[in-house]
């Protein structure tokens, strides 16, 4: 979308040997992931498989315990061009303790372009309007976000990322808890983005209407990448045997272990908690910013 200041032919995201530890417990281990410009990648896997953690590591929200990360060819520590990155966090709602209008929430996506103590410029307003049009909420700009449905609030969060005119999008479960018609609108918005040449990394439990958009699927399992290749069907993702066979067929990645008794995740009530929450009043959580 915006002209890239430096020309690079390499991958937009290059993570090699990536590992993430939360509160001292290794969560992600040995992740190699390269995403090319313009690709639409779906990060899939069961609850607790580490797919959200991986996206949080790629955006810098979780520090890497090991490995190296390059964004747009620049090592992470030297990367400051955050206006090229758009992030849609995993959130149930766009509301907070104070009423905020749809326009105001989307306008905060322009912060990467705005100097301190400056009001919105003409270009900022144009970008915000365009973002609202892409997600189909232009007529709701003045409404309070808390009056919108869950699916509409997710679209507001996507518009907020879109307003910064980034080249690379991370979306963390944008369709979780969203009804089917809204999922369709979300998928249409993502199709528009992808057609504009944006690179998209989407964390999804189920793809639903977004399935046809995906170029490539990466399946996470217990903190490791268990499959990386052409898009899979829902059953293939969630039935390890199928994914396993497919992975072997394609000779893409090897699965370290496959626990057979772990068929369909919906029946699995035990949530995989990354770090047990045991703390005294003054103990640190080991995680900054949460």
């Amino acid at each position, binding site marked *: 979308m915006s002209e890239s200041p430096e020309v690079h032919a390499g991958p937009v995201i290059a993570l090699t040997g990536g590992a993430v530890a939360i509160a001292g417990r290794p969560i992600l281990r040995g992740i190699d992931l390269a995403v090319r410009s313009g690709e639409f990648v779906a990060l899939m896997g069961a609850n607790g498989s580490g797919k959200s953690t991986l996206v949080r590591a790629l955006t810098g929200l979780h520090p890497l315990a090991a490995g190296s990360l390059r964004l747009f060819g620049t090592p992470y520590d030297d990367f400051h061009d*955050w206006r090229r990155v758009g992030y849609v*966090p995993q959130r149930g709602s766009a509301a907070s303790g104070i*009423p*905020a209008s749809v326009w105001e929430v989307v306008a905060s996506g322009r*912060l990467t372009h705005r100097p*301190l103590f400056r009001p919105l410029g003409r270009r900022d307003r144009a970008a915000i309007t365009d973002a609202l049009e892409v997600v189909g909420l232009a007529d709701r700009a003045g409404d309070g976000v808390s009056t919108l449905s869950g699916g509409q609030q997710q679209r507001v969060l996507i518009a*907020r990322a879109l307003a910064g005119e980034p080249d690379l999008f991370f979306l963390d479960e944008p369709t979780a808890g969203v009804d089917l018609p809204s999922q369709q609108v979300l998928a249409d918005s993502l199709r528009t983005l992808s057609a504009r040449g944006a690179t998209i990394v989407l964390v999804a439990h189920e793809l639903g209407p977004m399935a046809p958009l995906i170029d490539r699927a990466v399946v996470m399992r217990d903190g490791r990448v268990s499959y990386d290749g052409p898009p899979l069907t829902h059953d293939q993702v969630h039935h390890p045997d199928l994914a396993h066979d497919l992975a072997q067929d394609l000779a893409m990645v090897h699965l370290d272990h496959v626990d057979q008794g772990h068929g369909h995740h919906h029946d699995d009530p035990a949530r995989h908690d990354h770090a047990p929450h045991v703390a005294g*009043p*003054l103990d640190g959580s080991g995680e900054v*910013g949460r």
Partner: protein
Amino acid sequence: MSDYLHLLSLPFMQRAIIAALFTGLAAPVVGTYLVQRRLALMGDGIGHVAVTGVALGLLTGVSPVWTAVLVSVLGAILIEVIRERGHANGDVALALLFYGGLAGGVLITGLAGQSGARLQTYLFGSITTMSVGDVLVTMGLAGAVVLLGIGLAPQLFAVAQDQEFAQVAGLNIRVYNVLVAVLAAVSVSVAMRTVGLLLVSALMVVPVATAQQLTRSFRGTLLAAMALGMLAAVGGLLISAAAPDGTTVQPGPTIVLLALACFTVSWPVGVWLRSRQRMRRPFPVVAAAAHQTIDEHPHDHGDDCGHVAVPHGDHVDYVHDGHRHAPHGRHYDEH
């Protein structure tokens, strides 16, 4: 009446009015960001810590305003650090700090050989005894709070709204979090002479709670809260000054009660607005199940029929005794 006007023309009263005006403007600015973070009681916490600051001023002979600013800024940063590092038990840690601040303040005041009455002027306010210097300090600090709180509003809004998004957007969230904490501490120290340390938080939070009953944007809430804070501070002072001879009406509690009165008026309006909005929220469009028609309908639904009209896809459903009636040709469908 002429006595009242004469009272208002006295220099101490005019200083008090100016101080109330600036305090009333500044306190809700910080209060808005605290409420947005769901930290409405943080002002109370800082107020308690500031008691120790005032006591240190009384002990050392330094102006209590400055020692209060210093100690409450340190306390606010400590609260922010605990909040950032702690998990769900952060509120317990904050409570420990609050009690420590209050107990320390009372103890040190005793050590300084000062009476409880002296401390009380800071606990409950003493706006009518402010010197010209006090008023200038109030104006300066309140002005700085308003300037930073409004000038950096886009950044502060984004950080409070969604911290992770703000971090990925490249904002240094720790700087902004500490800035809000420091602004809160400064506001507390400024408002301490107006309404007193124990009531400071009311001036920060109540106007915001009042404003958000009626507003739907952040900007509207912030500006309305500032206007309401100013109205309550100046109005409360003027009401307390009008008290008949022989009664003592303190400005601090009057200001807080006036702010609460505004809330009491706006709250039912807010309840009504929200319920109206909820009733009219569109019904989701899903593929229809078996559809049922009503042949005999005693009543024509329309714009003014008194039944709530709710958008439903390409038509309107009328909510009628728990049913959803959609006009279809010459009859109604049950939706």
